[in-house]
């Protein structure tokens, strides 16, 4: 094969070879006695047509296709430069379509597809799930295990290595300097199991990872660069976390985040840090809190390893329900898309992963709309060049040749679209990524090879799709008919193809719009749910992590953590920006506690589908602060909050209704923690608080914290600010943070903001469907406009004739609009069917919205048809202004 850059030399050589041939032939004739003129003439004659000989010889060289492609490329570029409007329209619609896909691929890749960085042979790294069976209908499967459970799994032959980790947000520093950081406490086996090496210093060994070991820490690359200024002498520097001051001994490599897409700032040795991070008894308590990873011995299947692990686990079972616990394994890659914990016997796809996949599918739909639109524009452009195409076909150009040339044109457009798509992904996609990938990983690296390859592949596909359809159609042009008709669109089939492409765009757009409508309505329902408390002006303040250890106390002795909360409570109650404040043991939407409970008047508690009775121990002003109404009896008073006061409780409405139907709950008895405990008298009934979005019923009861009837310490403060107080949140944070010298970082948030993460999947669905739906609508409107404009331009003469015969402008507009609306209406019909199918598929993701929602359907169709009408009327009105004589003279 001859590469283009060597072709010039080769041409010269061929010339010389031919010249040599002629020279030798004529010299021989000269030698035979012919005259020089005769000899040269005869040699040339004998040789034949030199140009032709050279031409056929050249064809033997191969690599001609490169020349052809180059020629096509030049031709395409020239043509596109001459039609800037057309080019811009196609590139723009392809850029939007491809950009949507690049963005979504970037997100899905980070979230689900990309193997974890720096992890060796990640397929063999498995996450352990414990399927715990607490009784009929109460099977939970989750990643959390207790430390004794982790130790019991040591020595399973199928596990080459086993490691545990615990992720927590903690306070780095104290008092005014305190700031929150994410730490992960890991066993010494953690880093070797993953196969990662430090870029600086070392990771942990068994000497670090033990109770009362020397406090050491490994920092992430990001933390090292960002917070420690990339100091090369960082080893030996110290980090005050909780009770300890940790010495930095290593820096993890860049982008290392453990097996998950996002990772902590700091790693600490688990056995050393556990008592401080979790509880003094964390290493012996049966409370599940750590996550467990295993690296399988090569050649072992996860199923076999899981069976071995289950066996080892049950052999050492200590609690009754542990004898039925089953260990399940999922690769860390797969586990990214799974719920960390759920009811049921196996881990399921998380809603976030589900929604992200759906959004990926949406992006694909937008791409299809963009391709259909580009195809339509290319078709219209091709049709206006019919005469040229027909002429070339007539002159013997092959059909394949014409198709190739048109494909080159569309591929050039797609390449430009792909390039622009990267910019779309960079700018427009930032919001989407921030949504789907909160945290620092939401920034996109455009030079990431996987992303570039994906974008190039999608662009090529889009180019072939958008160019192939019109190329195939146009190259089949009826030469004679086209030449006779003067290049006007004579065949109905091509009109049909245009209408079909339009209809497809409209159908997909409608589907997206209906999806958007369903999600928006779901989101509205979620946001306007009655959560049972008054979220306005309600703040929550809590401190987590080291120093805030869970110290369970019974019988009145105050633990330091609760004492700190109570001091902060008194401090903040005096603040002028604060109307009321209260302390609480359970954190709304985060944690709740339950106890063995008996009640008077019943042998057993009624079973409620999704709920066991949960309690909360609260300070005196809790109900008023949270905005939970007391519907019967009374709430707690200062007299109740005293150790040794008469034992009292408030129950929730649902609790009262289910436990004592048709009876007065006031005066009934609760027996906390077992049969021999004393009666706790019910003195009031409070309104129900909705525990979550999917869970609507909660069996709740409350006791005064000050009586120490239950052991958990205080978890948070609820603070109701005065409506008049400006910037109350910042003021409360500052006041709490500086109340005492060594307060750990206090997180103060609007309680309503704590709900936002729970709304995430609906917010996401609504935003993405709406964004992509509108994008598709814009592209489809562009397409309708362009096609109508083209149709009108093609029929200028016909319109001229009609108007010459007395047709009114109105009639012409009606004609042109009808031409555009017919495919739009057909598309709307198709879209309606598709939307119904889609709605059934996303039913599980909706909230209190029927999949067939007449209002959503009506609004979507109405919006679509109105936009279609506008897009068609604009060019049609221009057609109506055609001067009949000018139009006729044109020919």
């Amino acid at each position, binding site marked *: 094969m001859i590469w283009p850059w060597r072709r010039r030399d080769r041409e010269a*050589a061929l010339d*010389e070879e031919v010249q*040599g041939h002629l020279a*030798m032939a004529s010299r021989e004739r000269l030698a035979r006695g012919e005259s020089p003129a*005769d000899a040269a003439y*005869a040699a040339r004659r004998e040789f034949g047509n030199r140009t032709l*000989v050279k031409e056929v010889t050249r064809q033997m060289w*191969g690599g001609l296709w490169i020349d052809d492609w180059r020629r096509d490329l030049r031709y395409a570029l020239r043509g596109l430069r001459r039609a800037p409007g057309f080019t811009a329209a196609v590139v723009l619609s392809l850029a939007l379509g491809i950009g949507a896909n690049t963005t979504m691929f970037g997100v899905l890749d980070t979230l689900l597809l990309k193997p974890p960085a720096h992890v060796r042979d990640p397929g063999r790294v498995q996450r352990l799930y414990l399927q715990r069976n607490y009784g009929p209908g109460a099977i939970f499967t989750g990643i959390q295990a207790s430390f004794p459970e982790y130790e019991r799994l040591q020595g399973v032959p199928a596990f080459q290595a086993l490691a545990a980790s615990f992720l927590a947000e903690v306070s780095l520093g104290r008092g005014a300097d305190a700031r929150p950081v994410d730490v992960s406490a890991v066993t010494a086996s953690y880093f070797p199991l993953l196969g990662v090496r430090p870029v600086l210093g070392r990771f942990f060994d068994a000497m670090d990872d033990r109770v009362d070991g020397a406090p050491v820490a490994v920092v992430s690359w990001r933390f090292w660069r960002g917070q420690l200024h990339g100091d090369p002498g960082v080893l030996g520097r110290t980090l005050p976390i909780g009770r300890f001051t940790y010495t930095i001994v290593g820096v993890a490599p860049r982008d290392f985040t453990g097996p998950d897409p996002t990772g902590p700032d700091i790693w600490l040795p688990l056995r050393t840090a556990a008592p401080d991070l979790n509880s003094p008894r964390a290493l012996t308590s049966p409370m599940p809190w750590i996550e467990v990873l295993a690296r399988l011995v090569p050649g072992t299947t996860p199923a076999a390893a899981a069976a071995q692990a289950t066996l080892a686990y049950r052999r050492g079972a200590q609690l009754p329900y542990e004898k039925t616990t089953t260990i399940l394994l999922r690769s860390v890659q797969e586990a990214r898309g799974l719920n960390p914990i759920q009811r049921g016997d196996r881990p399921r796809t998380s809603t976030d992963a589900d929604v992200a996949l759906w959004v990926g599918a949406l992006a694909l739909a937008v791409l299809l709309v963009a391709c259909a639109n580009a195809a339509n524009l290319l078709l219209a452009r091709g049709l206006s060049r019919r005469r040229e195409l027909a002429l070339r076909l007539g002159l013997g150009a092959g059909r394949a040749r014409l198709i190739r040339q048109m494909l080159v044109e569309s591929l050039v457009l797609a390449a430009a679209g792909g390039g622009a798509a990267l910019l779309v992904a960079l700018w427009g996609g930032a919001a989407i990524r921030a949504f789907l990938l909160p945290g620092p990983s939401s920034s996109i690296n455009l030079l990431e090879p996987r992303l570039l390859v994906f974008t190039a592949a999608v662009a090529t596909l889009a180019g072939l799709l958008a160019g192939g359809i019109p190329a195939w159609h146009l190259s089949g042009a009826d030469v004679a008919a086209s030449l006779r008709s003067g290049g006007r669109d004579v065949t109905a089939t091509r009109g049909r193809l245009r209408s079909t492409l339009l209809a497809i765009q409209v159908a997909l757009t409608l589907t997206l719009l209906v999806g958007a409508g369903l999600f928006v309505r779901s989101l509205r329902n979620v946001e306007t749910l009655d959560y049972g408390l008054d979220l306005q002006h309600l703040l929550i303040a809590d401190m987590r992590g080291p120093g805030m250890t869970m110290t369970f106390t019974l019988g009145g002795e105050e633990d330091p953590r609760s004492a700190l909360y109570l001091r902060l409570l008194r401090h903040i109650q005096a603040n002028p920006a604060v109307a009321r404040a209260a302390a609480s043991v359970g954190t709304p939407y985060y944690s709740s506690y339950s106890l063995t409970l008996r009640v008077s008047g019943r042998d057993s508690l009624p079973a409620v589908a999704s709920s066991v009775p949960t309690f909360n121990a609260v300070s005196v002003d809790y109900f008023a602060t949270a905005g939970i109404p007391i519907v019967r009896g009374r709430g707690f008073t200062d007299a109740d909050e005293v150790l040794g006061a008469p034992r009292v409780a408030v129950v929730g409405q649902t609790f009262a209704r289910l436990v004592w139907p048709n009876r007065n709950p006031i005066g009934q008895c609760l027996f906390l923690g077992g049969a021999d405990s004393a009666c706790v008298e019910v003195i009031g009934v409070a309104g129900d608080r909705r525990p979550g979005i999917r869970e609507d019923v909660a069996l709740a009861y409350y006791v005064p914290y000050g009586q120490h009837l239950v052991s958990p310490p205080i978890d948070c403060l609820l603070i109701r600010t005065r409506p008049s107080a400006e910037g109350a949140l910042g003021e409360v944070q500052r006041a709490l943070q500086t109340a005492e010298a060594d307060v750990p970082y206090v997180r103060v948030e609007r309680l309503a903001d704590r709900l936002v993460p729970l709304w995430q999947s609906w917010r996401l669905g609504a935003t993405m469907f709406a964004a992509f739906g509108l994008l598709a609508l814009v592209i489809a409107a562009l397409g309708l406009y362009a096609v109508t404009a083209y149709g009108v331009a093609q029929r200028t003469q016909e319109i001229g004739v009609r108007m010459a015969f007395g047709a009114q402008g109105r009639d012409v507009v009606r004609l042109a609009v009808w031409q555009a609306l017919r495919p739009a209406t057909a598309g709307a019909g198709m879209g309606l069917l598709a939307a119904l199918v889609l709605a059934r598929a996303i039913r599980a993701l909706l909230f209190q919205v029927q999949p067939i929602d007449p209002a959503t359907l009506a609004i979507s169709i109405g919006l679509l048809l109105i936009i279609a009408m506008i897009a068609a009327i604009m060019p049609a009105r221009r057609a109506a202004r055609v001067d009949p004589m000018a139009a006729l003279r044109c020919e």
Partner: protein
Amino acid sequence: MARKDRPLSRIELLQGTLDLIILQTLRWGPRHGYGITQLIRAGSNNVLQVDTGSLYPALHRLERRKLIAAEWQISENSQRVRVYTLTERGRRQLAAERSRWTQLSAAIAGLMKPQAESEP
């Protein structure tokens, strides 16, 4: 100028036959394009006259298939000429083609004989 010794009838060469003839010609040593035409003509008693429009494409095709190699040499009258040489691969190809050709011509000869006899 018209030549008296033109072949009586122009024989259309079978597909691939020209390649075989070229390889066979180059067996006796390197030749340039013009030399090959002369040799073929002489070797076939002026029956086969190779058209340049077939020869040069064939030479370049064989070169691309690496059956022959080309290099520039200076001829006796100090002219640069492109000279073709049979490669080792071409030699093997020639051996294979020649045995096929022998079989083919024997078969065709066998077919022709009885037919010729049955003709009235």
